[in-house]
């Protein structure tokens, strides 16, 4: 048992649901008590999704505790099958169902005999894995299921495409800037004359998964989700994969070179002669991306030696640390991640780019570290943003968990060459705001609200009695002034000298607000 106020990664079923609801025409049924279906709310709110989220609950209530839920689960699966005709139904366990220890696998087998849709049981353990790990595992499970099925039906077409092509694996719903990153990756690959075979899970159709092996190789942009699938495809279908995140000019170049090298090896027998990628990388780095120039500009000189702290998921924290240190010359005092299961990889990545490394999923520990280091800017999650607010340190958000403001309508990729521009803006704006704030502090600020207030106040001759004064203090601060003014106006109109609680509410009714 541990005391917890906040967590960086959600419970396992959220990961499974995110993968399921990213595919087209896949329905997830949660075996869960009332109220556990708030993933729908997150998706509908944060992503402003226009469609109903294809995730519903098979409710566990008192009856289920007494008699078991088998009939109900099977009925709910068959009902969804009838109503929505999905290609696939994924039965998702929650923490509640994993302690009930019902044989959900068995229900799935029974339901799949009757249902038109395929039915699988998400193989995730609530007490072992978190949201990201569960998403990774579920994606692999779905891919494996469809490839195995095609294999037994001998419908599998393993011939690769005639022109070089890749699968992008790991773009999905509620991912940090995933939609924009996906568009940016498409553009990058198009510029390199590489076709995209499939993008999964976002927008993918499960019936098409059998064609995954047609691609020449797999690209895994994020460390957290997709690696298991890539390893599986590598083992079973000998598909190579690239897992270098194309974030920041140096790593983008590295990623492109790796892709080229793999394609050259695979194409060695054919007549497809690849052009050299170095001129492309050079032109993009120096002129399409503004980031390299920006690092050399006078603006960026001012950032030299400024202390920063980076915290986030493994992918983003590692990449941003490297960008700050290597591409912008900014001092990273501490870099950390909450992906404890991937700590080794993380440490290896940022070796030499920062003074210290913090691996924890306790936000209090991160807060203490920030307070101790006193950086000029923080790059972290929403939690670090709030820590920064409390300590008066600006923060740029670079990783999930995030709020609705990180699901921007405008184009804001973190990957690719446009991503380097976005990141440069983010970094620079965080510091600039910080510096402006310091200047304001030194010169006493330009906020004259205090004085303005006094001259506007006309409460001469009006007395607030102690009760009404107390009542007024209970009103939320942002409307208090308005209430005060309206009440006084009302009192003056009515010729009332002493303001009581009654006068306050009579005024409220009179002004109708």
């Amino acid at each position, binding site marked *: 048992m541990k*005391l917890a106020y906040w967590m960086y990664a959600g419970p396992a079923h959220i990961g499974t649901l995110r993968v399921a609801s990213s595919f087209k025409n896949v329905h997830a049924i949660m075996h869960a008590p009332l*109220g*556990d279906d708030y993933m729908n*709310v997150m998706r509908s709110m944060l992503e402003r999704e226009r469609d*109903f989220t294809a995730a519903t609950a098979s409710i566990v209530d008192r009856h289920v505790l007494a008699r078991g839920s088998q009939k109900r689960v099977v009925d709910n699966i068959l009902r969804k099958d009838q109503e929505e005709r999905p290609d696939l139904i994924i039965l998702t366990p929650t923490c509640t169902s994993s302690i009930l220890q019902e044989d959900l696998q068995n229900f799935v087998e029974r339901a799949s005999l009757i249902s038109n849709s395929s039915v699988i049981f998400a193989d995730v353990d609530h007490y072992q894995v978190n949201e990201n790990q569960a998403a990774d595992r579920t994606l692999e499970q779905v891919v494996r299921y469809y490839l195995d099925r095609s294999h037994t039906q001998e419908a599998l077409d393993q011939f690769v495409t005639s022109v070089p092509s890749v699968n992008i694996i790991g773009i999905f719903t509620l991912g940090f800037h995933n939609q924009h990153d996906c568009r940016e990756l498409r553009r990058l690959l198009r510029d390199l004359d590489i076709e995209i075979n499939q993008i999964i899970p976002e927008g993918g159709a499960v019936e098409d998964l059998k064609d995954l092996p047609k691609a020449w190789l797999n690209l895994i942009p994020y460390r957290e989700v997709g690696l298991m699938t890539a390893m599986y495809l590598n083992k079973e279908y000998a598909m190579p994969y690239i897992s270098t995140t194309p974030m920041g000019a140096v790593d983008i170049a590295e990623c492109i070179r790796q892709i080229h090298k793999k394609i050259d090896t695979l194409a060695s027998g054919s007549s497809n002669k690849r052009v050299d990628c170095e001129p492309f990388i050079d032109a993009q780095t120096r002129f399409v991306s503004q980031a390299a120039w920006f690092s050399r500009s006078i603006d960026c000189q001012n950032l030299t030696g400024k202390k920063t702290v980076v915290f986030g998921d493994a992918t983003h924290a590692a990449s941003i640390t490297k960008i700050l240190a290597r591409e912008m010359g900014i001092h990273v005092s501490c870099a950390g991640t909450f992906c404890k299961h991937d700590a080794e990889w993380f440490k290896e990545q940022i070796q030499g780019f920062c003074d210290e490394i913090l691996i924890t999923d306790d936000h209090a520990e991160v807060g203490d570290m920030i307070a101790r280091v006193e950086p000029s800017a923080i790059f972290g999650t929403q939690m670090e943003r709030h820590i920064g607010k409390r300590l008066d340190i600006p923060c740029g958000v670079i990783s999930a968990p995030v709020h609705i403001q990180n699901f921007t309508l405008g184009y804001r990729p973190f990957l690719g060459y446009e991503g380097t521009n976005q990141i440069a803006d983010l970094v620079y704006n965080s510091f600039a705001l910080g510096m402006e704030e310091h200047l304001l502090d030194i010169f006493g600020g330009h906020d004259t609200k205090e004085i303005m207030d006094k001259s506007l106040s006309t409460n001469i001759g009006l007395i607030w009695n102690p009760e009404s004064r107390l009542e007024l203090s209970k009103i939320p601060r942002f409307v208090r002034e308005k209430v005060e003014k309206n009440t006084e106006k009302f009192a003056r109109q009515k010729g009332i000298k002493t303001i009581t609680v009654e006068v306050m509410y009579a005024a409220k009714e009179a002004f109708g607000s």
Partner: protein
Amino acid sequence: MSVKIDETLTVECETGNYHTFCPISCVSWLYQKIEDSFFLVVGTKTCGYFLQNALGVMIFAEPRYAMAELEEGDISAQLNDYEGLKRLCIRIRRDRDPSVIIWIGTCTTEIIKMDLEGMAPKLEWEIGIPILVARANGLDYAFTQGEDTVLAAMAHRCPEPLRERKEMKQKVLAFPSREKDELHEYANHPSLVLFGSLPSNVVSQLNLELRRQSIKVSGWLPAQRYTDLPPLGDGVYVCGVNPFLSRTATTLIRREKCELIGAPFPIGPDGTRAWIEKICSVFGVEARGLEEREEQIWESLKDYLDLVRGKSVFFMGDNLLEVSLARFLIRCGMIVHEIGIPYMDKRYQAAELALLRDTCTRMCAPIPRIVEKPDNSNQIRRLRELRPDLAITGMAHANPLEARGISTKWSVEFTFAQIHGSANARDLLELVTRPLRRQRNLEHFGQNTLVRKNNNC
């Protein structure tokens, strides 16, 4: 399955596959209401993640609640629950020094049968802070019913009413002028305690409404501080202000021997008037000026009423305020197609249901269908057929419905906004009309349906 309440109102029951908030969400408003409390939710990551997402920004403001997150060892009983909870509660005492710790039991503690009620008194004695237990879990309850479980637990801790007249007299001597005023101001009636958690401004407003009728409110359950819980017992009259407090009502009657005043709830000017009238009639006080006051309020709402008149509403149901809200909206001239509701206590809500029926008759409106434990997929099908002007629904369905050209109002806002009493009727209509006003403002923008054809299922 349907049950007749009287000759005209029937309650249907569907499958219970609907979306609502988990009842543990009640900590979000109760910790703010009860200033010296600390809420400890004993559950898993799932509960924690829900609170963290549902409460949004609040979570960063050093809230007085936390999760006692159960790990695998706790589930398999390898660790000692009592020692675990003791360790956490001692830490909470050290860091926050609350006057009461409230344990919120969850689905997990139910399933592993963790004996919270058994452990609480022992630990309370050991660490010297009152510990209450409320089983606000998703196996049994929906959303606002969480508050009901907490208040029911709290009712047991209210002190006995003062019997010694002597003490009262001493007080009179100490502040002679003031006490005389008070005696003069109020009618002679038994002590009245109101139950239901409301923001302190709304508490003052309702107290004031009753004071106008010379009725004195002796206390509220809950009070602003745990240490100020009102005396309860034989001869104390109680009245609810919210429709989801049936367990609390039952506890007050059965365990605390209080007299329950069954009234409609003070939501909307009509509800507020009926609520005051009922209390007055129980105490034999003649209500004064209520009719004029109600008229005045309706008059001041005219601009909003013009906007809603004749428009239709569909309540999908998730917070148990639905019957009262529907009754108010029908009185405003709206047509209600369906009242979805998670749970219907026909005894506790009897007066409210009667007022609903009377309002329908008065307004010549059809009696809406009441659906308990609704089924969201069936409801969405009905919504597509009826195409109401407004659907009051949870956030899971709001954006998808808007994209299909159906205006929605997020139901949770009704639980967080100030909607009680005559003075707040305008705020209530402000909420209801907001989607309609937006619709009007965007009229010339076109584009009402924003899904692709093949998605418009």
